[in-house]
């Protein structure tokens, strides 16, 4: 029997009872709105005229020369607010608005999802609070200022490592206090059903555009993995094209799917970085958006079937790719996206390979970090 909200053995709704009714309503609203012409039309209009879609697929001559393959960059960095996060934020915020919610809450690591949520909230006249770990607030100062500029409240989280995992905990707690009036705008393909499916739906525009833009069928799709939303957005429309290889690149210090074990966390059964008795491990990455111990359940499923493969690279590969792309292509990538680029640069390729990398965001937010790390 296929259970609702499950992908193979992964997924589910492992949340406190307080949130169950909210999830049931969310699921109902999502499945009816996603088919409604009113929503579809408005979402399309916002993606095009407001967020600047479609984003270009850029043939990178220099990366192609370096790898001796054909390399394309999907330019999510060029969309409004500077990352793919805007696709999901607009989709969910529009649904929140259409279902009569006045307040959205969000978690953020790199601040990109926080900025995207604050942006969508400003546009749609919604109140917005963003939970962010204190350590991430320190690392991503520029995005904190942007969120405040956009009228959002940024709530620092001091627990644990004060990064993304703790920000999700705080957002879940806040949501439990008033699930009837708050829309939790979760930023990645993680969490309880229907979030993984909903975020996948909103991010799939990435892969659908790539399909139309790429001159011939790609051999490899490569994306960085935090919770797994830009990767899922790129991969999903290609899932039936068996000959297209899909590769998710994690950060070595937060490699939940390439180095973790299955467990139950933040609403889903999925791969996690944890100890032998089920305590969630702290993570580390130079890229705050990858600094998370879990991963979306659909990725766990794709790993189990072998449809996608998952591996990881460390800070130094990412930092190297960051500098290289800036100096050679004049594109400053987000440190998150730099992991995907770094892996492609280090791998060996055939001339017949046609690689699409998701350049999930731009790196302006990372200036302080790269300066600290001696890249400037």
């Amino acid at each position: 029997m296929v259970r609702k909200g499950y992908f193979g053995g992964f997924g589910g709704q492992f949340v406190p009872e307080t949130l169950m009714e909210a999830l049931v309503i969310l699921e109902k609203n999502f499945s009816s709105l996603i088919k409604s012409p009113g929503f579809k039309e408005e979402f399309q209009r916002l993606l095009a005229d407001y967020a600047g879609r479609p984003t270009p697929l850029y043939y990178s001559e220099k990366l192609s020369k370096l790898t001796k393959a054909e390399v394309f960059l999907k330019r999510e960095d060029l969309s409004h607010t500077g990352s793919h996060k805007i696709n999901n934020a607009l989709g969910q915020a529009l649904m929140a608005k259409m279902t009569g919610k006045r307040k959205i809450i969000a978690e953020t690591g790199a601040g990109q999802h926080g900025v995207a949520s604050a942006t969508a909230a400003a546009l749609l006249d919604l109140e917005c609070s963003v939970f962010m770990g204190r350590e991430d607030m320190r690392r991503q100062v520029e995005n904190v200022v942007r969120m405040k500029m956009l009228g959002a409240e940024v709530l620092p989280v001091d627990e644990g490592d004060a990064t993304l995992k703790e920000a999700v905990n705080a957002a879940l707690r806040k949501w439990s206090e008033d699930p009837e009036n708050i829309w939790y705008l979760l930023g990645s393909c993680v969490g309880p059903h229907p979030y993984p499916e909903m975020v996948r739906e909103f991010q799939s525009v990435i892969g659908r555009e790539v399909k139309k833009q790429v001159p011939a069928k790609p051999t490899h799709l490569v994306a960085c993995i935090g919770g797994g939303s830009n990767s899922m957005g790129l991969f999903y429309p290609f899932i039936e094209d068996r000959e297209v290889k899909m590769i998710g690149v994690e950060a070595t210090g937060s490699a939940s799917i390439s180095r973790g074990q299955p467990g139950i966390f933040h609403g889903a059964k999925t791969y996690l970085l944890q100890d032998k008795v089920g305590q969630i491990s702290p993570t580390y990455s130079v890229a705050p958006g990858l600094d998370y111990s879990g991963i979306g359940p659909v990725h766990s499923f794709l790993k189990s079937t072998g449809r996608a493969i998952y591996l990881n690279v460390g800070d130094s590969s990412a930092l190297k790719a960051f500098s290289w792309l800036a100096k050679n292509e004049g594109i400053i990538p987000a440190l998150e996206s730099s992991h995907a680029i770094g892996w492609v640069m280090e791998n060996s390729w055939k001339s017949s390979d046609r690689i699409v990398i998701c350049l999930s965001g731009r790196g302006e937010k990372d200036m302080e970090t790269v300066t600290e790390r001696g890249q400037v």
Partner: protein
Amino acid sequence: MNRVEKRINELKKKKEKGLGFFLMGNWPDKDTFIEILRFIDSKNLADFLQIGVPFSDPVADGPIIRKASAQALYKGATLEKILKNLLSVREEISIPLILKTYANPLYVSGIGEMLSLAKESGISAIIIPDMPLEEISLVEEQARKNKIGVLLFAGPTTSEKRLVKISSKTSFFLSYTASHETSSLEFEKVLALSEKPVYSDFGKLSPEQAGAIAHSLDGIIMGWALTEIIDDSEKNFFKEIEKFAISIRKEIKEI
């Protein structure tokens, strides 16, 4: 018969209201935890106890239990160690025990193995805050095998239809996450809908609030009340626990 089940039934028969407290397992340390357990048992300060398992990310808990959870983890507490600690005093303690754990420590340590150890250690029921009705089948079979009851939560956001389903599925009684703001009208509704006795499960209540809620329901469970007392008092928290428990008992048993 299962100890929790027996106690709940006796109370119901005597038309007496029940009282349960939560204690974090192996906290403030392994030995003091057992002393507290013995103390509550020997003085008959509660009808049953919930024994908590610390978790790195306790999303359903407030600051007091989160702090105790982090301290217990720091000192090396695990589900298995807590159960083994309970096993060592199993013969001496008669108070019914409910294990309260998040899903992951149980899942990763092995549901079958842990529930069988739990049974050995005198646990009669289990409650898992992040395993709602939809997911509870994950533990049901092993719980049944080990004759451990599976308790479920409901709360003010639970719809009537859902509450009926939950109350028929939960073993022994329904844990209702009410607050002191929940109206007696709402309690009456819950009680009318529920197939099983209803206990309010809330962090801490004053004796008056406890009395008022117990008046409407079958009993109360306090989440962090004792944790706060233990954390606050520098030395003799035994006396404070006794004082507090007696003041609550007095209010709820006099109805």
